[in-house]
């Protein structure tokens, strides 16, 4: 009998196993981790009939190639990249067939859900690789054989295809100011929302580092370490904001000027170096 596995042929820049992460352990120093663009992973899972929190694969800037000795139903979502078999739809890869992601035309992270899920050993309740702490399965390497879960008992996929979301020319992140906006001048909050920031090369799953207007502080001194949420826009002393993504540290000591809306975090995770992004203040 053919084993239920996916063979990693090529990984691209970085490919990891991700589910919805390890919530609830921040007080023990454990980052949340999980898919950086959770909406895309959830959709990919729904397309193949998996529960939304099933472990799939997160590819960074395309380049992931998988071979399925026993065949598999898969769905590809997130950053749109050329895939011979189609994206945003459940697709059957026949036995010994390959799924190969090209380079995305926009966005950064592409998700692959496989019916039955990626069945590596969970750590603290999650199969996510956490780039900050190293928890979870290591990043994929060529030659890895990923065990796949059984599709037995899963519902049949209901949709033949999902419309891919439109990709914005200048992405907009809605931001709610606080909790530490009072550490900044009133002009800083206005400046942040006035002109676009550009995305820096050193962005990763921990955060999107931005370059643009310097956010001036209204007070000096150090903030005692405090809990951080995903989407927090932390501002180090150089005044250049960082939008925290899935692998952000659970606590931090730089003031948070605002928090990106949960619904826009997936978009933040799709920003690639050189992209322009604008903040839009809400409420």
């Amino acid at each position, binding site marked *: 009998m053919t084993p239920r596995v996916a063979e990693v042929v090529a990984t691209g820049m970085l490919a990891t196993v991700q589910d919805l992460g390890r919530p609830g352990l921040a007080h023990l120093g454990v980052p949340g981790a999980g898919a950086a663009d959770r909406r895309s992973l959830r959709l990919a899972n729904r397309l193949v009939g998996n529960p939304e929190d099933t472990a799939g694969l997160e590819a960074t800037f395309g380049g992931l190639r998988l071979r399925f000795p026993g065949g598999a139903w898969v769905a590809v979502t997130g950053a749109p990249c050329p895939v011979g078999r189609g994206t945003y739809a459940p697709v059957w890869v026949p036995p010994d067939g390959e799924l190969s992601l090209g380079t995305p035309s926009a966005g950064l992270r592409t998700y692959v859900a496989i019916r039955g899920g990626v069945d590596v050993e969970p750590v603290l309740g999650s199969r996510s690789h956490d780039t900050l702490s190293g928890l979870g399965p290591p990043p994929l390497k060529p030659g890895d054989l990923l065990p796949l879960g059984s599709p037995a008992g899963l519902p049949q996929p209901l949709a033949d295809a999902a419309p891919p979301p439109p990709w914005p020319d200048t992405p907009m992140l809605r931001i709610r100011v606080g909790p530490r906006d009072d550490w900044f001048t009133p002009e800083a909050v206005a400046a942040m929302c006035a002109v676009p920031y550009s995305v820096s090369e050193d962005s990763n799953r921990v955060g999107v580092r931005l370059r643009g207007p310097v956010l001036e502080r209204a007070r000096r001194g150090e903030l005692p370490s405090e*809990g951080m949420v995903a989407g927090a826009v932390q501002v180090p002393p150089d005044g250049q904001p960082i939008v925290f993504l899935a692998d952000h540290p659970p606590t931090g000591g730089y003031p948070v000027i605002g928090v990106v809306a949960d619904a826009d975090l997936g978009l933040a995770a799709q920003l690639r170096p050189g992209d322009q992004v604008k903040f839009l203040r809400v409420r």
Partner: protein
Amino acid sequence: MRRAGEFGVLVETGDLAASHRLDAALRADRPPGVTEIVPGPETVLVVAYGAACDAVDRLAARLAALNAAAHVPGGLAEGDHPVVTIPVEYGGADLAGVAALTGLSAAEVVARHTGSEFLVGWLGFAPGFAYLTGLDPVLHVPRLTTPRTSVPAGSVAVAGPYSAVYPSASPGGWHLLGRTSTAVWDTSADPPSLLRPGMRVRFIEKTEKTEAGGS
């Protein structure tokens, strides 16, 4: 009360003892929908991920009342935390350096480190990395000017007003006083971290005798 995004409330407790009282009260009687409770030295972050807007408003009101109670003597029960004893083989790479910085002998550094009761303030930096307060002020030394690229798991260290046990191998800029074989971090245990906010910790010097005793 400060809001941290749609789902987060950052409670300003003002001090660590009040953070611990509020943390203990919230864990003992967790408000519905709360997904994270993260105590810090002067704050507690409470997150109700996915909760409706008005539910987060109600949570914020309840947290304001609890925070007020945390500042009244007897307003919130103190958590009941046992003392965790951690045997240490002193003789770490920086023991002599800390002795030189403080003007003490190595034996006096050990005596002062084993002579204090520590409190687990909060965790951060790495999974299971507990900031222990209560370090003898004489042992307050600045971080290493050049952090090490790798510090072994179980290293017992000091920096600034804190002591810590490195839960796993990681880079680190703290002064290494010694090493313990007590596992402070175990992903197969529940909870995975031996040290949790509010717990008390004592270090004891591991000698031939305590080793023979199997501690």
